[in-house]
């Protein structure tokens, strides 16, 4: 296995080109930093307000906990379906997930300022703003940066998940590799690049690769094409939805359109 990895990494063809490691790495980093930037712009002033005034702390902590429990995959798929264009929607999802750690860091950093230091600041005649920028912010910086670090951590992981809905990044490599890991035959098969959205779950571990790719043969537009987008399916009646659901689970690769 190690040998495989080394030889795969050693192949220069895997590093460049649209699906190479470098472009994917930059893409990944770009999405993370973009989301981090937007989240910082939103979360730091909000956290500073709450920490400075002491108002809304309970709401903030509750909200942060709820977002922490929010399943990233659910949020990302949900936003992807709401907004027809995939990338902005996914970045909104990433921003939503990055806000709580930064918010919590800013809030706790500013709230951690020593009462006496604040009294002293007021005592020497500082206004509220001066106190915020000259006393509370410098004191808050370690915890604030800790929050940003946590957010980045979260973002790197979530961006990988976001590749599932068609955002690029390193997650793309993971999913592509995953699609071929357990089914070596599919690699050789003519349809392998198009079948990335089949549902591996519906192949029971015992079933053979060939039975898992039933229905992959019909040519379909590759979702990697930027313009590709499946047409909206007709509204289904309940019993129909049922059959479809069973079909999705029972027989994997059939596209339900």
């Amino acid at each position, binding site marked *: *296995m190690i040998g495989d990895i080394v030889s795969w990494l050693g192949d220069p063809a895997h590093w460049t080109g649209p699906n190479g490691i470098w472009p994917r790495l930059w893409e990944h980093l770009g999405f993370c930093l973009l989301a981090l930037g937007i989240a910082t712009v939103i979360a730091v002033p909000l956290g500073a307000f709450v920490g400075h005034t002491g108002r809304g702390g309970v709401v903030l902590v509750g909200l942060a906990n709820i977002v922490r429990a929010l399943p990233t995959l659910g949020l990302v798929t949900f936003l992807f379906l709401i907004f027809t264009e995939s990338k902005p929607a996914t970045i909104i999802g990433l921003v939503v997930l990055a806000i709580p750690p930064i918010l919590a860091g800013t809030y706790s950093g500013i709230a951690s300022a020593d009462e006496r230091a604040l009294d002293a600041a007021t005592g020497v005649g500082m206004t509220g703003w001066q106190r915020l920028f000259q006393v509370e912010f410098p004191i808050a910086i370690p915890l604030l940066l800790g929050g940003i670090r946590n957010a980045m951590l979260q973002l790197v*992981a979530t961006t990988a998940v976001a590749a599932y809905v068609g955002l690029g990044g390193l997650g793309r490599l993971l999913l592509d590799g*995953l699609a071929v890991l*357990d089914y070596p035959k599919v690699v050789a098969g003519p349809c392998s690049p198009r079948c990335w959205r089949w*549902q591996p*779950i519906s192949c029971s571990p015992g079933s053979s690769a060939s039975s898992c790719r039933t229905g992959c043969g019909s040519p379909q537009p590759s979702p990697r094409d930027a313009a590709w987008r499946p047409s909206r399916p007709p509204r289904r*009646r309940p019993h129909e939805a049922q059959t479809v659901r069973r079909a*999705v689970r029972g027989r994997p690769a059939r596209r339900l359109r």
Partner: protein
Amino acid sequence: MFDELGEFLGSANTRAAILGDLGQHVYLALLPLVVGVVLAIAIGAVAHRTRRLRGFFLVPANLIYTLPSLALFVVIPGIIGTRILDPVNVIVALSLYTTALLIRPVIEALDSIDASVVAAATAMGYRPLRRFFAIQLPLAVPVLAAGVRVASVSNISLVTVGAIIGTGGLGVLFTDGFAREYFAPIIVGIVLTLLLALVVDLVLVAMRKFLTPWQRGVST
């Protein structure tokens, strides 16, 4: 959107499937939590006693926690030799996360115990093992419980990522809804995941109250 939701939930088959997913989700999220807590307590106890081992455990713990979940889910079968669709992958990955997340709270909790209490226990003739389980561990519960709550919430949310690699749980509703461009399963999945996290959190708070009778009446 609400009509869709009604249709989706109106069918008994769907409801049965969702219940199955929910059961699977609870199993996949809580088993690693238990494994992780036990491992973290064991490692934390060792690291607490020998200070030199602290860095030895804490540095890898921090590193493990930075690994993206999806990457870990995908790589683990290659390392431990399971099949890619095996739920064991998710269980192992989440146990790793839980352990990594809890080692630091365990060590900090053990550190925070008043040394005179431990000394008193030693003077009364408690041997190290019994002292640990009868004195130190119970006193560590309040700090530990906070860490376990965080770990449980993050586990419950991470199990859904497993759906991408094909293990069950509520994440299946997301991949399903995404593949069919169907809102209802996604909404049901999000709501159920949040509810599950809330319920488990409440149970953990209740357990903490039960385990720390001396703190009753003190706000958490």
